[in-house]
């Protein structure tokens, strides 16, 4: 899935190379979620999901980038974010999506918890090439 960016809106690009970048990602996503008029609970869920994925990008992916912006599809508006790294990739995707599973280090709650916080979740990974995760939350 390519992210359903709104026409005429250029998504913002942020690096994820240091733990302070995770804070920047949260702030950017918060601003976008507010601009897209997500409800308070939906804002909280989406920022939290972005925080989890940004940390994954940093810790497991060895750093990468986040693109985030307003999204639009079939008359719905929302916010989208794409987390990309050129890390080791995920060898066993089914295992990685198992509830509560985490590959050690005690970080993250696995991807399944994060997936529950968003409306759309798309993961593309290849061993030795990297991982790209796209998430979208629609305004109700």
């Amino acid at each position, binding site marked *: 899935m390519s992210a359903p960016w709104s026409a005429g809106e250029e998504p913002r690009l942020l690096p994820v190379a240091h*733990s302070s970048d995770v804070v920047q990602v949260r702030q950017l996503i918060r601003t976008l979620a507010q601009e897209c008029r997500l409800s308070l609970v939906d804002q909280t*869920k989406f920022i*939290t999901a972005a925080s989890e994925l940004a940390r994954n990008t940093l810790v497991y992916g060895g750093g990468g980038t986040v693109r985030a912006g307003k999204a639009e599809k079939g008359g719905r508006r929302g916010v989208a974010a794409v987390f990309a790294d050129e890390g080791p990739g995920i060898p066993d995707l089914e295992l990685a999506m198992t509830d509560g599973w985490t590959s050690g280090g005690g970080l993250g*709650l696995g991807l399944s918890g994060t997936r529950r916080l968003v409306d759309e979740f798309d993961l593309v990974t290849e061993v030795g090439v990297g991982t790209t995760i796209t998430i979208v939350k629609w305004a109700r």
Partner: protein
Amino acid sequence: MTERVPILRIGDVLVVSIQFDLEDQTVLNLQEDLAEQIVARSARGVIIDITALEIVDSFVGRMLATIADVSRMLDARTVVVGMRPAVAITLVELGLSLGGVDTALDLEKGLARLRRSAQAADLA
């Protein structure tokens, strides 16, 4: 240098009010600082005020659970106060319901909770 969260003391209770979005390293520092301060100041209770936090992700959630466990081993009780409703909903949906962490709605109720558990311990 990473920022550090100040730890205040009221009687034998340590109070931490998290006022800004924490970097992971700051979260880890707080964990260590609190463990040290519990022993150095013979604290019987710890209150962590998260009223200002708009989100609590799994990293911060785990920090809260770890502080609760560590303080228990050091003979102190931890109460997390001020969690926002949207944060509670998000944490549960994420799969982190913080079963071992005591909570109260605000600082006053948190202090009352610690007083009650101290009295119960004295009677026992």
